[in-house]
């Protein structure tokens, strides 16, 4: 009896208004796996000072290029720094910078896209041309230009990437807004006296949110990769910061003698990008099956 009731209640829940309910998204094991890995990384980043066994910047030349040992689980690098500690502190850079890029691009791109789609006409044409210009910019060139003029740093890398990526969100939001504008309930909202602002921010935004979240989760993996990539070639975060891309870059001369130096940061990057892709795909699948 009891389990019957629970089942019924569960069914009623899944039938609710929220098209974006968590337990629908986490139906698949892959999605859960992705989310768990991401949560582990977030946890690591938050508690880096507690979790890291050593100071990530502490140079100890005597102990350089040591293999794994109880004191240094992943060994030490060419300057004797603890690789595990550097990886743990490095998660802060990756997660912080990628979230920052994402927040900026969504906060700029989505309102611009909704405005463009909702207003239509000349406003739409103008905004779309601007969006086209930004979409035509290759992120690499922009990063190079900004690093050249403002200097290479994590902050400038965020600026460069936001400058390029917001246009994607603007374009997506515009397309979705155009679709939603054709729905009958838009007319009904207008008839019951809703202002344009309320229609856009209460109704359009809520309807396009699942798609935007899906794109954002898929994108964050790419952004993490780009940050590591730009840092690798020296356009992003600067050494001696324990950033994963820098760790890769620093260790490339030891690829023959001590491949371990490259292996661990590489594996970490693969793991987190994979996790975000799993979660992103899970969300997108659920949006489509709706």
């Amino acid at each position, binding site marked *: 009896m009891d389990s019957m009731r629970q089942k019924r209640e569960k069914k009623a829940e899944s039938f609710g*208004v929220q098209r974006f309910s968590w337990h629908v998204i986490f139906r698949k094991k892959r999605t859960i796996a992705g989310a768990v890995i991401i949560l582990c990384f977030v946890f690591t980043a938050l508690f880096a000072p507690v979790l890291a066994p050593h100071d990530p910047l502490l140079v100890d030349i005597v102990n350089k290029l040591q293999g794994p040992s109880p004191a240094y689980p992943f060994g030490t690098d060419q300057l004797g720094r603890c690789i595990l500690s550097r990886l743990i502190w490095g998660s802060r850079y990756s997660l912080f910078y990628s979230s920052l890029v994402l927040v900026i691009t969504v906060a700029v791109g989505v309102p611009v896209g909704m405005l463009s789609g909702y207003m239509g006409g000349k406003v739409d044409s103008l905004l779309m041309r601007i969006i086209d210009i930004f979409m035509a910019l290759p992120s690499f060139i922009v990063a190079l230009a900004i690093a050249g003029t403002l200097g290479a740093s994590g902050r400038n890398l965020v600026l460069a990437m936001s400058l390029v990526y917001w246009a994607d969100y603007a374009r997506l939001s515009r397309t979705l807004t155009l679709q939603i504008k054709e729905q*009958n309930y838009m*007319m009904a909202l207008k008839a019951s006296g809703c202002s344009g602002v309320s229609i856009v921010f209460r109704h359009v935004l*809520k*309807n396009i949110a699942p798609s935007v979240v899906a794109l954002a989760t898929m994108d964050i993996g790419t952004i993490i990769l780009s940050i590591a990539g730009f840092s690798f070639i020296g356009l992003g975060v600067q050494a001696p910061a324990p950033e994963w891309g820098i760790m890769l870059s620093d260790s490339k001369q030891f690829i023959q003698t001590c491949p371990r130096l490259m292996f661990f940061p590489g594996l970490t990057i693969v793991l987190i990008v994979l996790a975000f892709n799993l979660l992103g795909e899970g969300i997108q699948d659920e949006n489509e099956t709706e």
Partner: protein
Amino acid sequence: MKSDILLETKQLKKYYGTVHAVDGVSLSIQKGQSLGLIGESGSGKSTFGKLVTKLEKPSGGEIRFLGRSVENIPERKFRPLRKEIQIVFQSSGDVFDPCYTVGDSIREGLHNYTDLSPAEIEDYLDETFERVGLNPALKNRAAKQLSGGQCQRANIARALILHPQLIVCDEPVSSLDYSIRKQMLNLLNKIQEQEGITYLFITHDLSNVPYVCKAVAIMYHGRIVEYLDHTDNLGENVMHPYSRLLFESVPVPDPRKRTINRELPERVQGENLQKGCPFRGECPIQEEICAETMPLLSEEATGHKVACHCLHKANM
């Protein structure tokens, strides 16, 4: 009395490219005189409903609502007037935002026009739900969790909750099955009597009209072809050949009483519609003049206007 006129349109036009959806419609609706607007699919009747509620922009002509000329005022200035003119849409399920409950959607109108406290809004919402025959507990459901009839009641509740003077009902019952249709029409009638709300009742189903309306306009290809200020014995009183055809087309269960025996000829299409009577292709009584001049509405009897050149033949 002039002050009793709620809504008046003069030569109202809406063109979509070369398609003349509404082509010079002049109608007026008086308080308490619900008007039925009848026409086949594509005759422009729904477009007319959207024009007078300012959900579509007219291409020309005038709309006067409550004595104010509203066809060119911006949405910001029209918004206070929206409270007085509400619309009930045909398709009921998709007129509620799927992200919100039905109650949320209906509350929104109250938020926009009143400054009631949340508790008062809740009371009022429950009361309105009961007035349209809905269980107030349904307000916490999404539209897709309601049946067609419940949805349409919620739809009426949304229009009703603002206490408008005029409700445009755009095919309010055509998506419902017959047993529920009757209930809905009774409900609309009850609301009309109790609250003094006037309807612009847009439908293709002639049988609905005498039920709810006190006047009738028949529309063909964006034009009014006939107007009657009463609805008694509609089938016998209409004079325009198109109106006659409409009434003869109502399916009759008894095959011996069926009256249409002739094949319907080709309709007039394309640019020829702009010249002469648009109905001439199908018209059994046409003359040469019908292909040349557009017939205008003229008063044939008191309160009865018809747009036809050949009425003398029709009444034989």
